[in-house]
């Protein structure tokens, strides 16, 4: 029985990666949930907004490193992030102006807007791939210090058999996500504009009566969503790698997170993000080592003790989604149900 080593393994392979992934999903789900709350449709283009934002950030990062700029030990991408966000903001505002605004005017059904967002998804994905140097290949753009704590230093510090590594990108992910969430909630709860957004989301007619300008609310929503999407995408890309079409596959866990938490409810989106991430990682992780440490000495369990192979990680978010739809369609935190 070796509890300490078991905990270290668990931290290293489940808790830390799942926390970082959960933070990325939470930021993504916040964007989806905001669009749902204000514009009242499920935005299928969100994954590709993240991809475009990340690609823009990568281009700026390359430009900066080309000029010799760096904020080592942090990755240069963090410095480039604000510029990436600005480019993405322009793009989504452009799409809103050219595409979505018309459907708001004619008061189209939400399902039509979902279809429109799929058209936007393709166009954005194509734009991302057209960007010079992006294409369809894997891009790693994390520079600076790789580890906050590496396996070796951890072993030397503690003298344990198992090592624990915290990658810089994981730490950055959690810190940046926390800053974003605090800023968002401060904005939504304390500022006049944020309050008008919440009012518009709660009751459109009443908000219009009290003189809130709907176009302004929509514009600010898009700006926030572009910022959240670019941040989430860049953090995910830093943590793993950037590939133009992997972000489409993030749609399912992001939607699951937003629905589990209750669509339209920001706190729910964060909870949902972590719930999905922890379920996904723990269901697909082989607990062999952990159980081995917890059992008697010199004993290893025979099987891998893995509930599902990692190829089925979609199935995890999907099953959670189905369970929520069956038993509590409005989500954990009560979201909208129309």
């Amino acid at each position, binding site marked *: 029985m070796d509890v300490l080593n078991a905990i270290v393994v668990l931290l290293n392979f489940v808790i830390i990666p799942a926390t970082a992934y959960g933070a990325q999903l939470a930021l993504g789900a916040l964007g989806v949930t905001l669009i749902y709350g204000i514009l009242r449709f499920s935005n299928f283009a969100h994954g590709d907004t993240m991809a475009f934002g990340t690609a823009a950030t990568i281009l700026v990062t390359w430009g900066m490193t080309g000029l010799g700029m760096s904020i080592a030990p942090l990755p240069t991408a963090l410095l480039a992030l604000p510029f990436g966000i600005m480019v993405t903001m322009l793009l989504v505002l452009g799409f809103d102006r050219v595409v979505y605004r018309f459907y708001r005017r004619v008061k189209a059904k939400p399902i039509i807007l979902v279809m429109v967002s*799929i058209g936007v998804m393709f*166009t954005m994905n194509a734009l991302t791939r057209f960007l010079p140097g992006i294409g369809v290949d894997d891009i790693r753009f994390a520079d600076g210090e790789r580890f906050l704590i590496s396996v070796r230093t951890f072993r030397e510090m503690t003298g344990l058999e198992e090592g624990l590594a915290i990658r810089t990108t994981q730490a950055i992910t959690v810190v940046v996500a926390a800053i974003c969430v605090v800023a968002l909630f401060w904005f939504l709860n304390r500022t006049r504009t944020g309050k008008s957004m919440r009012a518009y989301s709660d009751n459109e007619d009443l908000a219009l009566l009290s003189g809130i300008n709907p176009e302004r609310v929509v514009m600010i929503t898009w700006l926030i969503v572009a910022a959240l999407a670019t941040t989430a995408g860049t953090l995910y890309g830093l943590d793993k790698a950037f590939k133009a079409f992997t972000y489409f596959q993030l749609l399912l866990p992001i939607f699951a997170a937003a629905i589990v938490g209750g669509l339209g409810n920001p706190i729910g989106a964060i909870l949902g993000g972590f719930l999905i991430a922890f379920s996904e990682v723990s269901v697909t992780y082989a607990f062999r080592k952990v159980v081995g440490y917890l059992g008697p000495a010199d004993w290893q369990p025979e099987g891998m003790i893995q509930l599902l192979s990692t190829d089925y990680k979609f199935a995890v978010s999907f099953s959670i989604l189905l369970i929520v739809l069956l038993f509590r369609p409005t989500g954990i935190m009560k979201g909208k149900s129309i």
Partner: protein
Amino acid sequence: MIAAMDKKAVLLFVLVGALFIGTGFLESWNTTLGIFNMALVSAIMALGVNMQWGYAGLFNVGVMGFVALGGLAAVLVGMPPVGDAWAAGGLQVLLGLVLGAATIVLAILIYTKMPPTRARIWAMIAVLVSGFVIFRAVFDSGVALVEAVNPAAEGYLGGLGLPVLLAWPVGGVLAAGAAWVIGKTALGLRSDYLAIATLGVSEIIIAVLKNEDWLTRGVKNVTGIPRPVPYEVELQASAWFTDLSARLGVDPIAFSSVTVKLCYAGLFIIVLLILIWFSEKAWNSPWGRMMRAIRDNEVSAAAMGKDVKSRHLQVFVLGSAVVGMAGAMMATLDSQLVPSSYQPLRFTFLVWVMVIVGGSGNNWGAVLGGFLIWWLWVMVEPIGYDALVFLTSGMAEGNWLRDHLLESAAHTRLLTMGLVLLLVLRFSPRGLIPER
């Protein structure tokens, strides 16, 4: 008015036909027939999606999954059984699956029959956990035995060895089953939920096909699914065929390939005509009018005593069955199941573009969209490349912008699909042949 619209429809069909015939003269008849056969399959997929969207306003983002289930049916019905694999662990795999299904059924029974107390929750958890452990123990060892049998060529259970034409209805049944489960869960809730749930299920179906080697050989692909039509070599070897091609004065090798494609086309056209006939009958029946009434105003249809949820479930299952059938036909045409070839862009969204461009709510429109968009899909890439070559012809060789643009030509399809979808939804939401 109606006569004028019909004239327009006929004209459009003639124009699309001219596109195909033109391709035949400019490229080759073999290529054209290849495109035409896939266009027939696409038209059937579009008919299925049109039932869901055009009749009932249901948004299915998982067409790809149902197509892939049809492909699975072609393997399960058409391929010969692998005797050694069955002897090694076939029954054990089946037993494992039965145990897994029994666990779920038992859990559902507990949920519905027991009073809602804490004991019910614990009983469900106990059943699910113990059932899962037993399922994995039986199933995993069976799978390992099956996959160890001649993994280079087989390593899976094979199919039933029945005529592959039977796979077409079976594909429909498989897809209908999946659709029923999804519909039961997601219909009756907000409309976006169906979209998200179908997106999820299609990803999972593809993941299963890619990873369950005992069933589909996974990424090793199943090739050589038996054909319902003669093989080229058989034709070339038969006396009457060489005689016929000599009389017609054509090369027997090229002619055999065209003949095989024509046989496929004949089969597909029969299926398409039957489906159109049924769809039109359904559309003009009281049932069709009820579906449109529900689509246009659920509240008042419900007030008239129509059961909106079960009608939605019905039409969702029907439409998915048609899509599954088309999937089986496609795998039969290709004679293979390649799980990694199922891409959402190609099998979900392309079919959507067909329905919307053709005219949602009009069966003929969906068919027209199937032909037109498939032709464009095949032709856009070479045309896009040629256009870029022409546009950049003023630039010097090796100019970075020119190279970049030419490199990007491969992504033209995505951009075109996105733009076409956006433009049609915006400016012509009723499509080329609108609903009557």
